[in-house]
């Protein structure tokens, strides 16, 4: 019984790191905002204009990105690239970006000196 318990303890100890590794995605390389500023020419025509609306396939204001969490921006770009998000323009743009591009662009957009008051 004692031996059985110690086997169980060893098995549990061995499985712990694997569980942790499975649940925690590999940390993405931190983006470089200065490099990102050189890569956002194709973003600004829509995301750089306050209140800009997409015309296709539905009309709605494109999301504000300045101040957004960079990890979320990277995830969103990856989802456009892998098809989990479907906006045609964003899919085409994301398909052209490497992981490093995404991290740099996210770092650029996440920086913001602005705070708006409650509306």
């Amino acid at each position, binding site marked *: 019984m004692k031996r059985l318990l110690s086997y169980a303890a060893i098995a549990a100890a061995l499985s712990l790191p694997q569980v942790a590794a499975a649940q925690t995605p590999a940390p993405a390389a931190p983006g470089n905002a200065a490099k990102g500023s050189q890569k956002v020419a194709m973003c600004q025509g829509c*995301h750089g204009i306050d209140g800009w609306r997409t015309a296709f396939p539905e009309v709605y204001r494109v999301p*504000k990105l300045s*101040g957004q969490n960079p990890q979320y921006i990277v995830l969103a770009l990856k989802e456009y690239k892998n098809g*989990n998000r479907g906006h045609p323009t964003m899919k085409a743009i994301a398909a052209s970006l490497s992981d490093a591009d995404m991290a740099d662009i996210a770092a650029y957009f996440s920086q913001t000196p602005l*705070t*708006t008051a409650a509306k």
Partner: protein
Amino acid sequence: MTMAMRTLAIAAAVALASSTALAADVEAGKKKVQEVCAACHGVDGAQPTTPEYPKLAGQYPDYLSKALRDYKSGLRKNPIMAGMAQGLTEKDIENVSLYFYVQPSNLASKY
């Protein structure tokens, strides 16, 4: 009553009605947010529990509604948000979107 006065009266009535509707929507949205969204996105949408979740405070309501409808329809694929969006009516979607939009925020367009 002149034509101009009548027009003014109608405009005032419409403005009053729409501002009342706006207030009601935000309050209803707040209630729904506390039930469904706040555990992850924060009660005001400005401080999500993990940086992989987006800030929603101050985000355009038409974009937020579009995102929720896409989660609900499956056009946008995310297992967590699909489950959350399934429980929302169209009215809920408009209410929570408006509630998040009017919260204080550091989100902005950037040029």
